[in-house]
């Protein structure tokens, strides 16, 4: 004798959202994405960048920028990864990063962390004085000049660089390169030691 049909069975009242979190059945609850700055110390060896970037692509984390460079220790490199994800995604990204064998440590930097990126902007060389004037406004400087072009270096926050590039558009922008953010916590706190 088969038991009750699907619609006649004992049913719970609860519900979870798409992240598997129990929610009020009456309310619509989702986590809004936020930006997080992850900093990772990794073994400085071939393939580590591809391992990290492949992790982000196959897990479908929404990556904003990823920078990598050496540290004071020859065997170690440091990555700064900006992601925009709902809270559980950020948490998961940290945990998945920690799982990678070449990853030594991972931490999310606090909101007020020092964040800098670099842009090189090559514009037409017709009005070098005007270009310099705009560069000054953004604490930038010309790093190369020819009769046809001027290349300006700008460092700072993403917003500042966005604004500078907007301002340089009046000079016929020929080429732009940007690095993505490099970041460190403020104060004495480091990846190796909590303060």
């Amino acid at each position, binding site marked *: 004798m088969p038991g009750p049909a699907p619609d006649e069975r*004992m049913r719970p009242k609860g519900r979870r959202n798409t992240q598997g979190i129990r929610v009020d059945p009456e309310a619509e609850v989702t986590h809004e994405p936020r930006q997080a700055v992850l900093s990772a110390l990794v073994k400085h060896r071939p393939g580590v960048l591809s391992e990290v970037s492949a992790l982000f692509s196959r897990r479908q984390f929404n990556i904003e920028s990823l920078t990598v460079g050496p540290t004071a220790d020859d065997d170690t490199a440091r990555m700064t990864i900006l992601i925009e994800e709902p809270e559980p995604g950020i948490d998961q990204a940290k945990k998945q990063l920690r799982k990678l064998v070449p990853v030594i440590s991972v931490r999310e930097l606090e909101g007020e962390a020092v964040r800098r990126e670099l842009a090189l902007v090559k514009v037409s060389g017709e009005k070098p004085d005007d270009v310099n004037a705009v560069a000054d406004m953004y604490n930038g400087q010309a790093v190369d000049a020819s009769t046809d072009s001027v290349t300006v270096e700008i460092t700072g926050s993403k917003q500042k660089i966005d604004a500078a590039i907007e301002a340089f558009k009046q000079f016929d922008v020929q080429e732009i390169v940007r690095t993505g953010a490099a970041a460190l916590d403020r104060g004495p706190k480091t990846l190796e030691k909590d303060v």
Partner: protein
Amino acid sequence: MSERASVPKEEDETETETEQDPVTTGAQSVIRALENAGTDYVFGVQGGAIMPVYDALYDSDINHVTMAHEQGASHAADAYGVVTGDPGVCFATSGPGATNLVTGIADANMDSDPVIALTGQVPTEFVGNDAFQETDTVGITQPITKESYFAADSDTVGDNVSEAFALADAGRQGPTLVDLPKDVTQGETEVEPGAPETPETYEVPEEADDENVQEAAEALAEADRPVILSGGGVIKANASSALREFAKEYEIPVITTMPGIGSFPEDHELSLEWAGMHGTGYANMAITNTDCMLAIGTRFDDRLTGGVDSFAPDAEVIHVDIDPAEISKNVYADYPLIGDAREVLRQLFDAMPRAPDADEWRDQCQVWKDEYPMSYDTPDDEPLKPQYVVEQFSEMTPDDTIVCTGVGQHQMWASQFWEYTEPRTWVSSHGLGTMGYGVPAAIGAKLAAPDQEVVCFDGDGSFLMTVQGLSVAVREQLDITYVVLNNEAVGMVRQWQDGFYEGRRMASEYPWIPQFDKLAEAFGARGFTLESYENVEETIQEARDYDGPSVIDAHIDPGENVFPMVPSGGDNGLFALEEDHLDQL
């Protein structure tokens, strides 16, 4: 017999095993690393770039099993790892050899099975030049291993293998790979490999935080409708006994996941068997209505949970896992307990203030068992039902019989209608769902446990994908009984086409399949055909009695489908018991 060192050893040589000759090449260092790690068997296929390693194996006591295809080598190594708990080892050459291993490595990765794969690679100077039989094996396998190593130096290649071996086994088990360029294995070295040790950056938690354990134990003791969800991690952590003690002491009903089959005896009154897409109705009712779930060693795969919105929606979740990344990945954990399942179960056992007051709940679970029994129609005049074959076989064999399967309807029947009571007796492809897993997996399982009976249930479609492995089973004279539940179709696909694609059976029917009994005989195995209820027991007995591989071609009712069923992404509590129910969901 397996191909050991082909030249018979002098007697005195075997007696002085401990005094090994020093290594002189990278390849010898590779083999020494495997010996140091306790490797008994290697499953592999020879080839150009791996030849130096095979040459070094010639002088070793490690048994080598030549497989008929590299995919079989990785599946056999996987099954060997599942049954013994220690990493299974497979070898392949570069290029196509390595890429053929990939399916088995991905399979092991999804099921957290310990496997170490060693692949030949073109000489370092040709790497990156698209040389003959070159592929970027590390690049291809990185996303499906715990770590893939490129061995760059003859002096360190042995350490690479030692580390890969240790890593495959440590913490959450899984596959690792070492890619071995031919010049590196041929190269001279006197460096002996170090002992198997995990890399310094790899940390394995043992015990969970005591305070968290206490809170979780109190929540569980407070529950009115508690369940334990026991996953494959319980078996891998050798925590089945601890689980049994815990569940029995505190009288909490136990549901397993499919990989967790065998972690709790299905004949115990607290067992609700396994939950998920084709799990039992009672397990799915209990998992839907529980208010507190102790989930151990499970990653909450979607075949288990259905849509997460309806998965145990009233339940506080206590999640025990050795991999922190599994916590709150798919289902939010109210009480995360990171640690080894056996250790954490012991901690929980001690921390429980009392047993939950759950008499009513256990009665309710019993009502569901009565309401939704696992059953099937067996009128004598109908074609043979697959469930009957599985059930009869289960009754005729000892408790420690190992069941391997391919993937498809037969896999579900083998999991539903066989009664599992012991861990490491259920060997199947879960996460990746690899058709063709069965034939080579049974070979790995039999070599891992030569004293236990091994049966492999396969489907006609799945069997055909790796049928060449029969030649290996015959050569090794492995006493395996293969049962092909033959419905001349890729039955699970056909079932979905009938249920969800208006019966448009595109490319799912296989009316051209061979006679498997004759195919078996052609390979040198024994072949049997089974067409009716009359000679089921007799045929099974004959196949079991035959000392070597046998194949029973069981012609089953082609109309039989797998139920209960939770449609993909559906609500576990709304399982269909029959075709008609699917329309109501």
